[in-house]
């Protein structure tokens, strides 16, 4: 099982270590540093690294490497999932997961890690159980604690820990009972030079924020549940009901959580909201090139495309760009070689265009690789797959909650080849 955890920042400083079994010397991280150096980019560090007697499994989140050490055969996904959970818990407790916040709360971090894992076996990873065991820091509480000498460690056994619904604590009370759901869809797509879709799919999630008193039993139904054939649920969802009735029935955790995620890969269901006309070319001589990009709406279902951003990864030899944007602003970073064009709202009447010349390192040959465009966008009040929530019912409690559903579509890994 998981033996030790090291936290390492982007500069390669090891700033926290935690051992669940015997202590392993931090020199084990040399194998990690070696791999880190070889990978150049932090994103490219391989997740599983082998050393003569141990395996290092790591994830990279918020500019921190979470490096875990294991000694015996353990499912790597188990370790990676757990590390993600650690990162999420820090985020949840401290508002952000960064080196500064971790250092600022090192004792809580240590207490948390101790609660989450026992001898390498996960113990309590549900946020609401942890919060009962170790209260998150707030300014008010730390003030009170210093004055009264009380602690932020819970003294009693968390109620949810052993019930059959470990994700919810008992005795939740709210004056305003509310349940909000966000249907968020991301379009992953690859379009080729001519604008034809090479590949497209939708990754959807339903995020929930449920603040309801007592033990509410909710069921959520869709207008068109047939869209969903590939789904993953939060453990609270009763799978049998979904299989037989296509209704999501569950006793919700308290607060924010991800109710489900789904995946729509049928190409005909994935609408591509915009088109991109582009022409990026480099001349054989003269160390220069031309760039011309136009973006226009395609299948937007009558909604406005917002927060439109085009990112171009230029070849290394491109020194600068002298362009003219009809809408929005552009910026070329000669260090990272990234051209960023922030367009904003897409106006169907007047299509935004970016045009001009690129100057190349003098004497350098014409670049071989073709740059690739990445698109970011957002469409409010629309789930691009057409998924619609039909109704939300609550059983088991008497009060009337406020309910709400929001839809939003974003671009995920949306790439246009040139």
């Amino acid at each position, binding site marked *: 099982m998981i033996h030790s955890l090291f936290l390492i920042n982007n500069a390669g400083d090891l*700033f*926290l270590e935690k051992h669940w*079994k015997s202590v392993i010397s*931090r020199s084990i991280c040399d194998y990690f540093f070696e791999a880190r150096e070889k*990978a150049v*980019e932090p994103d*490219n560090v*391989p*997740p*599983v690294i*082998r050393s003569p*007697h141990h395996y290092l499994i*790591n994830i990279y989140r918020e500019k921190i490497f979470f490096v875990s050490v294991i000694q015996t*055969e*353990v*499912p*790597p*996904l*188990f370790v*990676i*999932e*757990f590390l993600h959970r650690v990162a999420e818990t820090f985020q949840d407790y401290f508002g952000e997961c960064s080196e500064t916040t971790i*250092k*600022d*709360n*090192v*004792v*809580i971090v*240590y*207490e948390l890690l*101790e609660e989450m894992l*026992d*001898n390498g*076996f*996960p113990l309590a*990873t*549900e946020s609401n159980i942890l919060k009962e065991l170790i209260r998150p820091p707030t*300014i008010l509480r730390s003030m009170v604690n*210093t004055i009264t000498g009380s*602690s932020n*460690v819970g*003294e*009693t*056994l968390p109620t949810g820990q052993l019930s*059959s619904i470990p994700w919810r604590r008992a005795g939740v009370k709210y004056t305003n009972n509310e349940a909000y759901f966000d249907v968020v869809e991301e379009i992953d797509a*690859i379009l*080729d030079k001519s604008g034809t879709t090479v*590949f497209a*799919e939708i990754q959807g999630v339903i995020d929930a924020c449920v603040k309801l008193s007592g033990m509410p039993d909710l069921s959520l139904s869709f207008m068109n549940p047939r869209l969903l054939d*590939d789904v*993953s*649920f*939060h453990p609270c969802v009763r799978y049998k009901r*979904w299989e037989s009735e296509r209704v999501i029935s569950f006793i919700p955790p308290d607060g924010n959580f991800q109710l489900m*995620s789904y*995946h729509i*890969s049928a190409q005909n269901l994935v609408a591509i909201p915009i088109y991109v006309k582009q022409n990026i070319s480099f001349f054989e001589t003269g160390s220069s090139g031309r760039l011309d990009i136009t973006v226009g709406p395609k299948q937007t279902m009558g909604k406005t495309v917002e927060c439109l951003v085009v990112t171009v990864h230029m*070849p290394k030899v491109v020194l600068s760009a002298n362009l003219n944007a009809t809408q929005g602003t552009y910026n070329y970073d000669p260090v990272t070689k990234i051209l960023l064009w922030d367009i904003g709202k897409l106006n169907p009447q007047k299509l935004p265009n970016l045009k001009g010349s690129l100057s190349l390192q003098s004497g350098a040959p014409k670049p071989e690789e073709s740059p690739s465009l*990445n698109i970011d966008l957002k469409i409010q009040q629309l789930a691009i797959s057409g998924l619609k929530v039909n109704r939300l019912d609550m059983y088991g409690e008497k009060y009337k909650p406020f309910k709400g559903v929001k839809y939003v579509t974003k671009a995920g*890994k949306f790439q246009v080849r040139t």
Partner: protein
Amino acid sequence: MTDSKYFTTTKKGEIFELKAELNSDKKEKKKEAVKKVIASMTVGKDVSALFPDVVNCMQTDNLELKKLVYLYLMNYAKSQPDMAIMAVNTFVKDCEDLNPLIRALAVRTMGCIRVDKITEYLCEPLRKCLKDEDPYVRKTAAVCVAKLHDINAQLVEDQGFLDTLKDLISDSNPMVVANAVAALSEIAESHPNSNLLDLNPQTINKLLTALNECTEWGQIFILDCLASYLPRDDRESQSICERVTPRLSHANSAVVLSAVKVLMKFMEMLPKDLDYYGTLLKKLAPPLVTLLSAEPELQYVALRNINLIVQKRPEILKHEMKVFFVKYNDPIYVKLEKLDIMIRLASQANIAQVLAELKEYATEVDVDFVRKAVRAIGRCAIKVEQSAERCVSTLLDLIQTKVNYVVQEAIVVIKDIFRKYPNKYESVIATLCENLDSLDEPEARAAMIWIVGEYAERIDNADELLESFLEGFHDESTQVQLQLLTAIVKLFLKKPTETQELVQQVLSLATQDSDNPDLRDRGYIYWRLLSTDPVAAKEVVLAEKPLISEETDLIEPTLLEELICHIGTLASVYHKPPSAFVEGSRGVQHKRLPPRAGSGESTESPDVGQSGPSEAPPAVIPSQGDLLGDLLNLDLAPPTATVPSVQPSMQMGAMDLLGGGLDSLLGGDIGGSPSMGAGLGAAPAAMPASLGGAPAVGGGLGDLFDLGGGVGMPTGSYVAPKTVWLLAMKAKGLEISGTFARRGGIIQMDLSLTNKAMSVMTDFAIQFNRNSFGLAPAGPLQVLTPLSPNQTIDVSLPLSTSGPVMKMEPLNNLQVAVKNNIDVFYFSCQYPLSLLFVEDGKMDRQVFLATWKDIPNDNEAQFQIKDIHLNSDVASNKLQGSNIFTIAKRTVEGQDMLYQSVKLTNGIWVLAEMRIQTGNPNYTWMCWRRPHVRECVSQNDSPVIS
């Protein structure tokens, strides 16, 4: 007001200051001080000097302070064992506390203190906690047993904790069950044969119930445990599958993958025509695809596993090609994996799409990725014949880009395409030759030289081209040197008139000016071949080359099966057998996929996988690199029998060369042709003796009778003594002798490996060629320690009969390749057919009678065994030990007639009648159906009786 303040004290007397604070009367100050100590600990500062002071703070009713002290204790108790005893009392007291949280905390912490003296005190509290009324305490205690076992295994067994742990599997609380399973699995890892997790339908049922209710982590433990269970029949297997499938929709990807493992394994047992089988296949695709939309680290592990799954069951993902298309922002490790799977899924139906993608990737920035993409195009050409032409033209386009590394990769793969489709695409040679100068990598240079040599007759200036390489001969890498040598010899054989000078030049460079023994040896062989028998030289050097296999990196089927049983583990990420991941002496049981229902015999498994390429015969040739005209390996490996045009006598000759000739050659004056002749002459005398010794069967009868008389073998089948299969001088110092045995229904190959070289040998592996009865290693060759010079190790390799089948001549011939860190060696041996006689070979009397009558006369063979002095009962008993069963006996005219049946692993029955006259038993053999089995049986049976 943050914790970072704890880091700020760096004055001289830091420890001193903390000590004073720890001993303060004020609770608040104490707590702050402990926090400071913990903070120092987290960043790796040594604060062990404060041990007694911190332990003094343990007696407190403040839970936070207690926890902090416990944290400290766990870290430092080991370095201060005597001091740690001070804490024991508090622990024991805390284990009786009214608050379950404190009880659990105490037992948990105690288990983490790895001090022998403390563990003695731990037993009593632990026993109580295992039976605690509160499930939270019980589940914590379950894990504590695993901790204790890690520290002192004997103690845990003596105290009977293992039984208590087993009882917890039936606990009413699912969380307790999950932790008990997790603890038992961890303990079982260090006791491979202890049968700790004794799974039966009742416990399975309990686990399945707990599965629905426990936490995600518990589900992983339970699923992994389920995967090691072998259902009794297909119905049980189906019902387990049905209850596991909902896990595929879990948000935790580790749960999903563990569920996939269980399903992939149990699916093996379901009959293929079952509707449910098809449903299950369909259900597996979406969760696998979903894993690919997760974070890149998860994707990576998922992709490594999918790679295995598509090799085993390509039908699951065959329509999902597009999800493996590479995205611009994918990390490089994901890109490379996706590419690999794309090629595995490539088929005629989607090849156009795949090629378009690959061409796109070839213009990306990342050099490694581009190279692999170019290589992938070549692999597509070899895999999908219809696409070959398009692939070649794509490669030509890429060569036109003149990007250096793209060109080099393209040339390497085009060489393979030439190999696969001879006389088809040679028109592109001219284009390739244009790029000769830009090649600076050894592999590409070697490939280009191979092409020039192979097609020397079509390239006008082949001699000039090769001559240009020759100028810097000594600066080239060995690969290129060897290739250049071979290519020039080829050229000489094709155009002898103009290239005499060139060939002399290269031979003298290789033999006289080189320090590399491989190069020198090859040079001498060519030299001698050319000078003694140019016709033979032509036959050897220009021999027809064996076909290259379609996919070079397919995982060997037995390993694949084992890896499928280990989906989701490190083994599956590294594609290596799990035994490679276990530290030290701990062994691992080899897991095999269960046999399919209805087949009954394991022999059917070759048919099972026919649907997919996973059953494609393992490449006869170890790797592509060796292939490339590596004459030494090819010609000197008679067992592979892949060089059809070379006569057996030729092979013998080639072997002799190496065996005796070269040695004397190298010892004596080098390069003189007279001594060469001497070497040649001397060699054959030595060789036949060693060769003749190899087949155990050939020489068999006489020797074996002698032996059999002395060694009474009441039970178990006959085991021949070990004979030498591989001579040290032929295998760079590795000598292998061995024999075959059948023990408890398992076929085993007993090998003695002897290192007669000067250096240590490691990394042993073994592979069989296809053979008549599908014998294949059931696991990897377990040579755990490196073999030092003059050391001999005995290993037993279990064999299965589920390997690919090909008729051999003689029938019981087995061709084996053994690899170590030095090289790959080939030898062949013959196994006694009695090895294949299965335990359930007793035929029903009625069936026997009916079958006996049906046997056509020409399937009958007679065989005499002489000089045996046994009566019929003793003979019958002895034969039964070797799974030859006596069905009936009658006495006619003073002769005992025994009617016997034998069943082979592939389901063939052999029926026999044995006549025994005192002093001269006469065997009449009759065989059912397969005439060629008969001869072998008769040969083999005699040792068995004696």
